[in-house]
């Protein structure tokens, strides 16, 4: 592992991945039955294999020509076990939110598979896909924009029942919604209120209640507490842990706050430039990182960190060590210095020396020091009228 930084396989190493027992369902009914089957605690419930999502970059208006692709997710594999919390961390732009969308099949994967109970959901459609989506729900980051301001709380939480009426018959819905409000710690009498009448933390509880409405097995949480104040963050994290025990949920918990992720997760995966750089138990990841991103990321998180609470100041061993440079860009830019960006983080892992980080004129340092020529690589070039 000491020789990271050249051309390394370590970056897309995917340990802890078991074989997938696929289920071949001949008919839709069989597929649905397989999806509804229970999974034992500790067994893999979601298995992701070599997941790839490339967003094409095109040029021209009439005759669209693909000139490249943003490799948002570029070969990610992992398992999610029933009842566990898998944390996924990474900087913005590393592809973690795209992974979340792919797991829900909200984005069509370019390549790769997502097996839910042995069925590849990227190939499902119709009733089977609907059944999968019932069992995999999502909680979003921003409680201000993910709730429709014109709908009452009752309508927001009850909307999933319109799509899946089998979960709650019409006459029963109001009671169901009130139950859900109670479960997430809100007053059931708030059912007719609108989102703006709630604080950020309360709104996130509404988002969680909506995610719980259909009794899902997996909840994908995309930065669920990032927008909240510190004191409220703790309340929401506690609630999520309580619900996990109560409803036997599996979580994929995406965040960039390492201390929160460590607290809630059984295992943590670290993403960098569309790949899963490393995955393991929290102790493996935080205390014995093998990927060069980590020493920076783990301790780069500011402050009274794990193990050294309330011990600020320069002389203590957990003082954060900033990673120099910025995440490389994944656009296939026509610039020699950017070749290889998106594959390798150039850093002397053995030395763990921040000084050896990508800097100007260093590949992988991508943008830094590279005066991009105007009009180059800043997104698709589009012909405008008159040219």
């Amino acid at each position, binding site marked *: 592992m000491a020789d990271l930084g050249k051309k390394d396989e370590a970056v897309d190493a995917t340990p802890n991945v078991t074989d997938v027992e696929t289920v071949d369902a001949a008919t839709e009914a069989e597929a649905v039955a397989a999806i509804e089957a229970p999974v034992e605690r500790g067994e893999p419930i979601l298995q992701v294999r070599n997941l790839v999502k490339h967003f094409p970059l095109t040029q021209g208006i009439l005759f669209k020509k693909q000139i490249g692709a943003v490799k948002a997710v570029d070969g990610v594999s992992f398992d999610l076990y029933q009842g566990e919390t898998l944390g996924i961390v990474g900087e913005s732009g590393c592809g973690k939110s795209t992974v979340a969308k792919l797991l829900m099949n909200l984005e069509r994967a370019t390549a790769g598979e997502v097996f839910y109970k042995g069925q590849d959901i990227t190939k499902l459609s119709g009733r089977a896909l609907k059944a999968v989506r019932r069992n995999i729900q999502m909680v979003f980051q921003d409680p201000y924009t993910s709730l429709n301001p014109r709908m009452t709380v009752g309508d927001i939480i009850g909307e999933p029942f319109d799509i899946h009426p089998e979960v709650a018959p019409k006459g029963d819905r109001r009671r169901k919604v009130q139950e859900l409000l109670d479960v997430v710690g809100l007053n059931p009498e708030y059912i007719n209120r609108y989102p703006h009448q709630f604080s950020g933390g309360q709104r996130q509880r509404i988002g969680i209640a909506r995610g719980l409405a259909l009794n899902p097995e997996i909840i994908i949480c995309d930065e669920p507490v990032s927008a909240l104040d510190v004191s409220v963050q703790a309340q929401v994290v506690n609630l999520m842990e309580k619900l996990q025990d109560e409803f036997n949920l599996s979580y994929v918990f995406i965040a960039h706050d390492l201390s*929160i992720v460590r*607290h809630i997760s059984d295992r943590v995966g670290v993403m960098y430039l569309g790949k899963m750089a490393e995955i393991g138990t929290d102790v493996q990841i935080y205390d014995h990182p093998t990927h060069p991103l980590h020493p920076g990321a783990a301790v780069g998180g500011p402050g009274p960190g794990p193990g050294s609470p309330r011990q600020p100041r320069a002389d203590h061993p957990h003082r954060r060590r900033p990673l120099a440079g910025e995440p490389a860009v994944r656009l296939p830019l026509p610039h020699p210095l950017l070749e290889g960006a998106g594959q390798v983080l150039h850093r002397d892992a053995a030395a763990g020396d921040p000084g050896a980080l990508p800097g100007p004129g260093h590949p992988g340092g991508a943008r830094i020091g590279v005066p991009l020529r105007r009009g180059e690589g800043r997104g698709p070039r589009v012909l405008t009228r008159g040219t």
Partner: protein
Amino acid sequence: MLLDVRDLEVEFRTRDGVAKAVNGVNYSVEAGQTLAVLGESGSGKSVTAQAVMGILDMPPGRITGGQILFQGQDLLTLKEEERRRIRGAKMAMIFQDALSSLNPVLSVGAQLGEMFEVHRGLSRKDARTKAVELMDRVRIPAAKDRVGDYPHQFSGGMRQRVMIAMALALEPDLIIADEPTTALDVTVQAQVMDLLAELQRELDMGLILITHDLGVVADVADKIAVMYAGRIVENAPVHEIYKAPAHPYTRGLLDSIPRLDQKGQELYAIKGLPPNLMNIPPGCAFNPRCPLARDMCRTDVPPLYEVSESRTSACHFWQEALHA
């Protein structure tokens, strides 16, 4: 004393009533010192800073009391014309969201240079040279080539560096940074904080760092003022506050950060919600959420008790809080 804010009070008159955003804030900064102002959203930390800078929206805002002494002079008695001469030249501000604080249709160089043209009367060409120097100073690589670039061509961290450069342009004596790293990735956060701390040392400026993140300030601040519902509830040197907070609110904030030895346990959470500023609870504003609250807390507003020479706490039972 570089800046001394005394009993500052600010309120906002809205259709629904009067929101008391700042209710008697006292803090001070000396040259070369870093004060971190800590608090949740709505605690009044940004409003206080805006009042100091003189960029508070008035109306609906109104400064109803107190003094802001800057280098011995009460800023609140100055005319707008005089304040404008101080703003930028003697005190400057760095905002949270660099993308919306920079003008998208002007190049970064033009925006940096403008400072020199307006305040120093330099020609456009000289101003541009100065802009390149500034960009070098905040370590924007290839400054010469990037001076003509527009804000959207920079990454978040680089944009925040541009903001810092702009604040530094006229070498002010005081810089107020309002959540300078909140919008940035953790790895970039550390870079920006280090840069800010280094420049401050170099130029011997006073720095007020506004944040809600306890982690960010631990490394760089000299002292911390914790705000709650428009008041300072605790004022202390940074070491002491992390070691033993003297206010139950500060303790709550520190305890709600997940720690290694508590993994698998429930996180400590301050119960309840921050108060509505139009209807602040009588007595100590924190009493409905406070584990130590007693009858006295519901009736008497706690004064700032002196905990030690350099430390104050607005809690009737600070001794208990300290030893909890």
